[in-house]
């Protein structure tokens, strides 16, 4: 009886050790991503299970896109600030206010297009399953983006 109990314990310890070693190995891979300058990409690698090559290409695209995104962010913020300032002046629907509304809508539409271009460039790096998952998660935010409030420059 004692021998059987001992074997059962040994099996449990071996299973736990196997789990720990495997998980630690996987965590190590994730930490390498987190140590990167772009921790926001941890989701891409972890959730979509990108290969090293895919991840490297996604990083390159993301790095190239970041400055563009920051510029767009600033333009939206400026256009919104201009609109807010004119609206709060309380002089009614002046031509300037109408122009500010149009300008904000134009800037938002332009930024949304550029964002979608980036998302579709990124999705081309993935296989069908990864692409489906990526679009499922990211597209709703991209499509609803313009209905959100004023932009803030998160790249600052």
């Amino acid at each position: 009886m004692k021998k059987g109990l001992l074997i059962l314990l040994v099996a449990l310890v071996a299973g736990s050790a196997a789990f720990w070693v495997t998980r630690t190995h996987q965590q190590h891979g994730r930490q390498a991503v987190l140590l990167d300058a772009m921790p926001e990409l941890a989701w891409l690698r972890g959730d979509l299970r990108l290969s090293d090559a895919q991840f490297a290409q996604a990083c390159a695209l993301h790095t190239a896109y970041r400055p563009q995104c920051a510029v767009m962010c600033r333009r939206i913020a400026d256009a919104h600030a201009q609109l807010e300032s004119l609206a709060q002046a309380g002089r009614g629907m002046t031509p300037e206010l109408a122009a500010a509304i149009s300008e904000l809508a134009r800037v938002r539409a332009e930024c949304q297009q550029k964002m979608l271009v980036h998302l579709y460039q990124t999705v081309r790096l993935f296989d069908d399953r990864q692409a489906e998952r990526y679009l499922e998660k990211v597209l709703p935010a991209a499509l609803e983006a313009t209905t959100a409030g004023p932009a803030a420059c998160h790249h600052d």
Partner: protein
Amino acid sequence: MNDSELDQLLKDGSPPVQVPAGFKHDVWLRIATAESAAWKPCAARLLERLLGVFAMPPVAVATCAAMVVAGVWCGMQPQKSDPATEVAYIQSVSPFAHAHRR
């Protein structure tokens, strides 16, 4: 002899016995304890038999191997993605990231 005569005879024939207080209670308690403990030897025998199976070399090796495989499989399962990292990514590509509103 009718029943009442027999009852009287039995009553007269019983020697006077002094039982301690709580005798009946003790008797019933012992009966209840014996009944509730009856499954224990059965479970012990079952456990002994089961552990005896694990002590057999082929079963022991198979159990250890199965546990290692199960451990590796569980360890390889993708962890549930952290919603915070997903949001961080979406915000990083969206110029409309209103979560950081000024």
